């Protein structure tokens, strides 16, 4: 897929670019940070493995229909709240998250509710938190960030209610 290729090019391009800057600072700095990065990688792999392989099982026991059910056409703040819960509970990657959002839009879900769902999914979908954020970041930071993020899907829904449809 070309988007994935583009991402890889940008990603490794940035690595090379930043690597060049580090190399200019001297080979010691450069080698030290390469070793550091490689060690981080080795340390992170078991946890990524657990996350990637494990989240497939977690996703398999949370069927998508359950999530879609929470995103029903009941509007208002109760609908927003259940959309936020649904966003956090959605298993799988971006395809599933956005597809559920699209299905909800087409089957009569309110726009503010779908916005709340997408924003909540982006902020704290449990699978991304488990799979990516906790292995890489200090756990204290992750929980703190998630807790601080809770109001924002609601705020996004409120803004959506005020400024209206796209």
């Amino acid at each position, binding site marked *: 897929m070309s988007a994935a290729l583009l991402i890889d090019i940008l990603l490794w391009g940035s690595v090379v670019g930043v690597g060049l800057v580090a190399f200019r600072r001297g080979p010691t700095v450069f080698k030290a940070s390469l070793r550091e990065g490689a060690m981080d990688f080795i340390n992170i792999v078991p946890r990524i493995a*657990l996350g990637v392989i494990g989240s497939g099982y977690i996703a*398999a026991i949370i069927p998508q229909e359950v999530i879609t059910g929470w995103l029903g056409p009941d509007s208002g703040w109760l609908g927003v709240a259940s959309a936020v819960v649904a966003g956090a509970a959605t298993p799988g990657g971006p395809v599933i998250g*956005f597809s559920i959002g699209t299905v909800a839009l087409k089957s009569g879900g309110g726009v503010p509710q779908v916005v709340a769902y997408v924003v909540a999914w*982006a902020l704290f979908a449990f699978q991304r938190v488990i799979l990516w954020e906790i292995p890489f970041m200090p756990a204290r930071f992750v929980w703190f960030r998630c807790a601080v993020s809770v109001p924002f899907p609601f705020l996004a829904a409120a803004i959506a209610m005020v400024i209206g449809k796209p």
Partner: protein
Amino acid sequence: MSDPSPNSPAPAEDAESEPRPGRVRKPIGWSTIIIAVLVAVSAGLVWRRDGTDGVLDILTHDLSLFSGILPRVLAGCLLGALISEILPHEKVSRSLGPKSGLMGLLIGTAFGAILPGGPFTAYPVASALLAVGADFGATIAMVVSWTLIGYGRAVAWEIPIMGTDFTLWRILISLPLPVLAGALGRFVYIRLYPKPAAKDDET
């Protein structure tokens, strides 16, 4: 939450000492154990429902996913390590530290918005920023900005699936959120952990 050791967010004191305190180098923590238990229980439920074939199907699918992700994880780790090596610590703690004000939150937001790649870049780089002196507020602004207004996921997934109109409109709504989340994070953090913030004055 009680994880003060290597990743403490006030690292400004070791600006010139050689190897940084390991960023991700903690032994298997309780969150890993919780995840492992969750995975084991889920795998058990899948096995009861679909039998051994169901378990193996998911395993092979996820293993191929895993092998595809690995090179990107390596790139993300290298990027994080290189960035934390070349960024001058004092400058980072000045422009992204607890005293950086609104400007720090805006820089964090801008950085998150332009960062290339996916979670395999965003989290190692965010972790590197924390290690070289950014505070929770600016780092939260960066992570939230990456996830809400970063172009990577929007271009690759959201526009194709949800449509351009919805995506642009959703991003427009999200524009103020990273700065607000960072500000809220900073506000709460200072009240929750007054110590590290005070320690920063001495350096």
